[in-house]
């Protein structure tokens, strides 16, 4: 169940390269296994954060003060494109990231953020560029504020920017709603749909096969 998100004032790190894909956010071998959650924070952006010998890359922004404490990322176009791996969101979350501001995100990554209580904010590229410039002008000391209720971002320069967000997703984040629980409340509707659909599109539906063992 996602943690609610309402307001956040925090250090923000601009990572402005275009097309940062989910393979760059988290390498696949870190995600192989059912016990990986909770181990991923140190591997977020692994190929950018660490040098070939395993030591920290001093040039990468999240390895520098004060960006090391960043809870907000300001990102270039098409951040989170590529794979559906939700581990990309988990790794950022475990690294302490709670919101990501960019001009556009990979569709699946964007949806995965909401499932985990991470706020992805879409604003015009000009706003993203201005935010990044404002942050860099303070060498990261100036904080960025996000107010989901009011749908505003405040830059370190004091500039205030409104953002749009789907009202359902906004409510889900504000309240930390669990979609599975919400949909299960509609189980009668799901069954009614399936009953009607068995007549309309019988080729879609199969007989249930008994489980070889019940997982009671």
């Amino acid at each position: 169940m996602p943690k609610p998100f309402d307001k956040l004032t925090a250090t923000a790190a601009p990572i402005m390269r275009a097309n940062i894909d989910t393979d760059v956010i988290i390498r696949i071998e870190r995600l192989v296994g059912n016990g990986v959650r909770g181990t991923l924070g140190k591997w977020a952006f692994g190929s950018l954060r660490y040098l070939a010998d395993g030591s920290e890359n001093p040039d990468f922004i999240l390895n520098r003060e004060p960006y090391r404490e960043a809870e907000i990322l300001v990102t270039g176009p098409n951040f989170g494109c590529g794979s559906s791996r939700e581990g990309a969101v988990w790794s950022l979350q475990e690294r302490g990231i709670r919101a990501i501001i960019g001009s556009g995100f990979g569709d699946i990554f964007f949806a995965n953020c909401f499932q985990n209580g991470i706020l992805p904010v879409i604003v015009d590229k000009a706003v993203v560029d201005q935010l990044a410039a404002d942050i860099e002008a303070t060498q990261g000391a100036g904080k960025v504020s996000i107010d989901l209720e009011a749908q505003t971002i405040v830059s370190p320069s004091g500039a205030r920017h409104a953002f749009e967000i789907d009202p359902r997703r906004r409510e889900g984040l504000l309240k930390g709603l669990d979609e599975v629980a919400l949909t299960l409340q509609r189980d009668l509707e799901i069954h009614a749909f399936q009953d009607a659909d068995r007549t309309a599109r019988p080729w879609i539906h199969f007989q249930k096969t008994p489980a070889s063992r019940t997982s009671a």
Partner: protein
Amino acid sequence: MEKTGRTMLAKIWDQHVIARLSEDTDLLHIDRHLLHDLGGSRGLLDLKSRGLKVHNPELTFATPDHALSTAPGRAGTSKIGMELLAALRVETAASGITLFDVDQPGQGIVHVIGPELGLSLPGATIVCGDSHTCTHGGLGALAFGIGSSELTHVLATQALIQKRPKTLRARFEGKLPLGVTAKDMILALIGQIGAAGGTGYAVEYAGSAIRELPIEGRLTICNLSIELGAKMGMVAPDEKTFEFLRGRPYAPQGEMWDLAVKAWRELPSDPDAVFDREVVIDVEKIIPQVTWGISPEHVVGVDGVIPDPKAVDDPARRAAIETALEYMGLQGGAPIAGTPVDWVFIGSCTNSRLSDLRAAAEVARGRKVAAGVRAWVVPGSENVKREAVAEGLDKIFIEAGFEWREPGCSMCLAANGEVVAPGQRSVSTSNRNFVGRQGPRARTHLASPASAAASAIAGAIADVRMMGR
């Protein structure tokens, strides 16, 4: 207001709405849910931990593909890979989910087996915890990748909350030149509109060149929708689709078949349907494509040159090219053809079907892989493997010096220990040339199976049209 025609997306979408949740968001019924070894057991265990059961196990199908070694005998599957396989077996059995297991007909890359078994059907909603689920759209399905949370949601409810995407129609018009394939068509489109060109859209591929393509080519086209930024891509079903599906194990049979085909004929977009965006591609201008950088949009014709950052004015674009060239170890302004390669990988959900292997074998036959090049052929499924062996394709590859492997995802994503070594250069028929995708610091060039085979023979990125077949 004048009534306009409906798109295929709208028709399929509306047939699946269980409840309208807001103006643009619906609770959709999911007709087919495919599980694989990386995320399948995790989802089933997650469900169990919530005290829930699989809503419709008979609409859920599983197979191991990602973490499995493709070495003969599956030798070298990691301990954790074996644990995932064991967990998938236990949890699918406990839930009554059909598992297509190792060495059984039906096992293979999820996006190869869905169409092959007739699980994927026109007009069906299909999801899988894998972004290349868009592949199944080649049959006229509404298919898309989902994350772990949505996967659990589908297991629990057989439904998913989705926002209706915008629609983009990409029309490929004209006659495909010799040596140019479906892979080249879609890479050319990505080069034209960019890796985010389809973000927020469901893409419908149309036009005379799409109609001419066999189904396997359409699956390849749809497979790369996500590399365009679109999580859904589809092609209207037609007679070729029906012929492809007829008689497949899970496709409807008898009277049910006739009923289904009648409904499927209604699915294509109406002639007066309006799309939010239209793109037209003249396929007669397409030549074999190969990527030079770290995003699928970094693509050129094989007779082209690597972009020179010095010739680019926009600082952000120039920096992006410089970053890519540094990673790839390439010089801007140099011809892409002739770049020496260390590895060739023929496989993946993009290009591991029988027609792909035939195209590569046609190039490889009677020739030899260049000294110093390691070349792998990884069939997409157990059935593809068996059909290829029955045709003698394995022998052609082996005689030419390729390694013939067991079905699986293999070197496409390197989740199974099968990696290109750091700094080495690979020509791959897969879908992503991302940084480290084929292994840490591996350098990947995406291309078609024919181009990949030609490059293996030449020992360098090669123009298959020069190979004289």
